[in-house]
């Protein structure tokens, strides 16, 4: 690829190929609409977005309102459709507010992860050589630890607050993106429009970001969606062991933690946040799987 290559493709055509998606976008949406799983996932995720954004408007109570006389009321009690917790706080409101935490963590952690992973993957696949070996070794090392333990460890080192949770989760998962992107880049590197772009003098970075990136976007988007579900699970685990959001910020995981103390007396404090977590992660998983099937049916 280093010899001079007399490109029969005029520069203007190469320019017009920049950023072109090879994904047949019109067909993607049609395929998704036909899949009940994908549509269910989409509905769940959109629902989560709406609830999280409008949390303050929808929830009956704010984050701080306690009513100790009404502690541990069962679901169905007057004004408390899902019951109350040990401080008399409305479970439904707490779960609604908790959705905000979950969504924030999902988006930011997945973004951090993707930003690191995709960049490293592109560098690794495009430049190859020693750089590639080093980055791959780093991925191996990041996978030498169980993810949950690594996340707990990172948060413990950085300090238990929500921001560090998002950072820690991002730092745990970047390897997946790197491997994925590297593989995609390796197969794309041989394509003619890459060598065409090079012969007209496009710099490596420009090639990577304007030519390679749009063509690897599809599987990255799928992984991003699935990762958001994983991020929510890890955040719940971290909060459950006390390393996540600190009180009074409600996180589904920390509500579960307090539910554990009152498991015998008030099982609903354990039941409902868990259902919320499960349905949300299920939504992301269904959406991710649906996107994967819709974006490249050849992979089925």
């Amino acid at each position: 690829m280093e010899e001079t290559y007399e490109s029969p493709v005029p520069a203007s055509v190469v320019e017009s190929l920049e950023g072109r998606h090879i994904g047949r976008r019109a067909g993607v949406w049609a395929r998704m609409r036909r899949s009940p799983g994908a549509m269910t996932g989409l509905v769940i995720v959109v629902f989560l977005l709406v609830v999280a954004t409008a949390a303050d408007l929808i929830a009956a109570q704010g984050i701080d309102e306690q009513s100790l006389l009404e502690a541990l009321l069962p679901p169905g009690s007057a004004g408390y459709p899902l019951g109350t917790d040990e401080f008399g706080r409305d479970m439904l409101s707490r779960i609604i507010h908790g959705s905000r935490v979950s969504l924030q963590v999902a988006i930011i952690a997945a973004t951090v992860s993707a930003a690191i992973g995709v960049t490293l993957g592109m560098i690794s696949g495009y430049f190859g050589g020693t750089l590639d070996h080093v980055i791959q070794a780093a991925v191996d090392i990041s996978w030498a630890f169980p993810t949950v333990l690594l996340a707990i460890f990172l948060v413990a080192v950085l300090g238990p607050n929500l921001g560090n949770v998002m950072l820690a989760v991002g730092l745990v998962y970047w390897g997946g993106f790197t491997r994925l992107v590297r593989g995609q880049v390796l197969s794309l590197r041989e394509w003619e429009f890459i060598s065409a772009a090079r012969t007209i003098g496009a710099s490596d970075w420009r090639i990577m970001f304007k030519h390679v990136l749009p063509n690897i976007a599809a599987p990255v988007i799928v992984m991003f969606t699935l990762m958001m579900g994983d991020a929510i699970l890890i955040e719940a685990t971290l909060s459950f062991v006390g390393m996540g959001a600190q009180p009074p910020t409600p996180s589904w995981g920390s509500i579960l933690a307090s539910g554990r103390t009152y498991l015998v007396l008030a099982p609903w404090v354990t039941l409902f946040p868990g259902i919320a977590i499960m349905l949300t992660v299920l939504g992301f998983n269904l959406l991710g799987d649906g996107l994967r099937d819709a974006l490249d049916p050849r992979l089925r």
Partner: protein
Amino acid sequence: MANYLIKRLLLVVPVLIVTAFLVFLALHLSPGDPVDVIVGPIAPEEVRDRVRTRLGLDKPWPVQFLIYMGNIVQGDLGQSILSKRSVTEMITEKLPVTAELGVAAFAVAYLLAIPLGTLAALHRNSFIDWISMVLALIGVSMPGFWLALLLIYAFAVNLRIFPPTGHEGIESLVLPALALGLPRVGKIARLTRSSLLEVVDQDYIRTARAKGLRERSVVSVHALRNALIPIVSLMGLDLGYIVGGSVVLEAVFARPGIGDMMLQAIYSRDFPVLQGGMFVLALAIVLSNILADVAYVIVDPRIRH
């Protein structure tokens, strides 16, 4: 094959050194002085200095790291700051507890999943097929500790069949093993199903049927054995899942295993225990990955380099 194995084993050492270094670095750069943990924040300077010197914490940290690595080679992982016990001793004591949970969870997951997956493959698009898919999705989406709490509520609190916590006898292993193993059943079943479906189309299956073998023997002997090949590599991944899952589950079920030890060490900033534990866990995972690769090569007769 031997060359491949030797190459993989040789890589283990540098990976472990770098991992140990990163853990070491992370701990020593983090806020919070381990000396505070031992003597309390209001102790006078001379006491703190004495403790610091005794623990070797006054040396520059690259030196500390080298001393630490030297000790590891001799089998000394240091001493817990909190309990003064040898870290090696603690790990040797607690590893079997985690291991028995891991083995039990493995058994639960694979003994349920492989038959389920086989049935799903044999009866495509039927109820069983649909159930296995639903189980897979739910299992992957559910927080493991939530399932644990639900199981405790159902079986320990209400039905009182199994003990909710503790480490005595095989009854105490049932609920934790279910909590750790059940979420994986769906995924393993799906993999078994798709793998079996791929195998069933192969020529050697047609040959077996043409020979007049009973369908049952065709499936169980010829098809399943080959279909299980990708399952073997899934088992390697499961080790990481088991260790990660046991961290929280041991806390929920009050089992004194490695996961519980690590969690306690994190809460109390017990550096030596954390370092030693992370090192041993990394070692276990790296070795098990190699083992899984080797098993894959052994089980799949097509790969023989």
